[in-house]
């Protein structure tokens, strides 16, 4: 990837290397000093850990080419069940309330869903969809936006005008609506989480492009760009080696905050039935199912929402902390 190369090139000189390392270490320690940002980081780390584990677990049969089929690590732990398998009739009780309720039991700490599956297992396994969608689609928006924004800001003039009008256009349609239209039409009427990821990613390209562009506009005027131009470095390489790395920090902050927004939107998408499809456990999709049981089992609608809230809050707190650490101007 161009970005990675650019960073490596940049840190080739010994003095720059020390400086860069000092910068990142400094940022990290600043984030850790901030109590709320630290807790945000803990939440993010926990959610990432859970989703990595559940991702490996639920894709085990694919990873082993079917040698271990329909088996989950989680089943070997007493608190988990298979996240997708519906218990045979008579075995699992449906719509059980959580353990602290008089009718609940500790074997299903958060109760069971309308099909009799353990809700706690499904909440835990739901993390991977939200988080992977959040990160992957933010990455798509990030990479696409960086390229468009950098080119637009660096060259200016006609290219800038055309690109920015395009960006404004995508910006003008509410993301949720654009993503639903994209998902439904591109998938030919059978929406799926893959299309949702792609749709969300593409929709967020303009957002990133705008931020990168405004950064590039200020970086462009720097002396080192002038120097690089004077010594005959190609424009393409100037963008790659100097412009992008130097406009990086604010976009990184934005990307962290954007992961939260993405998870929020994808939850809405799944809630409406255009994201993850059953039986995949996903928080938004679980809220969709529980919508029909609001009178009979209140808790089904509470847990997935709380899971979304805590995850997004984690990303937001961490992002805010990162912003304070990287940009002392906004620090209050």
């Amino acid at each position, binding site marked *: 990837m161009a970005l990675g190369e650019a960073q490596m090139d940049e840190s080739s000189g010994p003095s720059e290397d020390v400086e860069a390392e000092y910068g990142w270490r400094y940022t990290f320690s600043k984030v850790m000093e901030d109590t709320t940002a630290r807790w945000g980081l803990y939440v993010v780390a926990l959610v990432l850990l859970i989703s990595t584990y559940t991702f490996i677990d639920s894709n085990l049969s694919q990873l082993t080419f079917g040698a271990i089929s329909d088996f989950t690590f989680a089943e070997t732990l007493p608190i988990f069940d298979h996240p997708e398998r519906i218990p045979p009739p008579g075995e699992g009780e449906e719509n059980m309330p959580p353990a602290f309720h008089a009718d609940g039991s500790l074997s299903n700490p958060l109760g069971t869903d309308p099909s009799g599956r353990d809700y706690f297992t499904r909440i835990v396994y739901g993390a991977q969809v939200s988080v992977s969608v959040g990160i992957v689609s933010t990455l798509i928006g990030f990479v696409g936006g960086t390229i468009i924004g950098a080119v637009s800001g660096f060259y200016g003039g006609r290219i800038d005008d055309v690109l920015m009008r395009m960006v404004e256009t995508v910006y003008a*349609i509410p993301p949720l609506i654009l993503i639903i239209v994209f998902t439904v039409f591109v998938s030919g009427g059978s929406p799926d989480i893959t299309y949702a990821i792609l749709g969300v990613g593409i929709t967020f390209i303009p957002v990133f492009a705008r931020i990168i562009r405004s950064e590039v506009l200020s970086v462009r005027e720097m002396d080192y760009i002038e120097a690089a131009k004077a010594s005959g470095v190609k424009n393409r390489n100037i963008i790659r080696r100097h412009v992008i790395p130097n406009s990086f920090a604010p976009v990184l902050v934005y990307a962290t905050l954007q992961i939260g927004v993405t998870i929020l939107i994808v939850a809405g998408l799944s809630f409406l039935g255009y994201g993850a499809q059953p039986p995949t456990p996903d928080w938004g999709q679980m809220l969709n199912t529980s919508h029909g049981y609001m009178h009979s089992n209140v808790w089904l609608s509470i847990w997935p*929402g709380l899971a979304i809230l805590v995850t997004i*809050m984690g990303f937001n707190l961490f992002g805010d902390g990162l912003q304070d650490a990287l940009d002392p101007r906004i620090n209050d």
Partner: protein
Amino acid sequence: MGLLRYTAGRVVQAIPVLIGITVITFILANLAPGDPVRLMLQGQEVNQEVIARIERQYGLHRPLHERYLTYMSNVLQGDLGHSIHRDRPVTALLAQRAGPTLMLVLSAYAFALATAIPLGIIAATRRNEPTDHVSRIVALIGVSTPSFWIGIVLILIFAIQLGWLPSSGLVYPWRSPDQYGYSGYPELAYQTIRHLLLPMIALGTLQMATLMRVERTQMIESLQGEYVKLARAYGVPERTILRKHAFQVAQLPIITIIGLNLSTALGGAVLTEYVFNINGIGRLFLEAIQSLDYQLIMGITIVIGTMFVVGVIITDISYAYIDPRVTYGEHD
């Protein structure tokens, strides 16, 4: 004179964006795998003749650019096409559903402004005191919670558990009380508010949280301004300083945020209308997507995109009108 020219300039700038919106929706709807007719007739056994007839009826056999030009010339004449599924003009369907959505979005903004501005000011004047921390936590939860989940929780508490407020539908104040079987206009007004309360809060919370954050930062910045120091030195009472000096300056960014957030609000309306069973444009959009009624989908997307563009232009112009520091000649 300058302001007039500025207004005209902003409108001219918006034209490419508006054209862009139609191009994007048109391409998404028409380049999808499987043409619109087959998508529309999904699952139904139809022979080639029927398909050919429908294609001719809607001009789908002609090349894409020709169809786009025809569509655009119709749009310019105020004709957004014809809903195949409902056999009614798209504009008529939209006009019928616009009222509830406007009522919902505007009331959500009213709620957001009425709560965010006082809370933001209180947080700024009592910085780092308990009141400030509480308001920051509220704002954080507000930006981290999906609006549809807030709606679900509100229904669970106020409609299902307490039974105080209705959980679905709206009462429209522009209809006569007899249509609902109410005794008169006071009851109509009362019921309108009762029905509107929960969806308004569900949709408005995110706006409230974002506005409150901005209001707080702006007020803090404004209170540190030289003019405030000077006023204090002259012995102007703190209340007057807040009201006359700090407040007015701090409101300008709020206007911009309102305009830009219109996009999230319109997207959020889709989810809120779904949760609360409100027959607005958002629900119409979901119904259109469900039946793959592509003329209706294009019509809704274009109208919503235009609403956003117009909203942004209005905020830009009011910004320039209120703030004398804005120079009309510059763009961006």
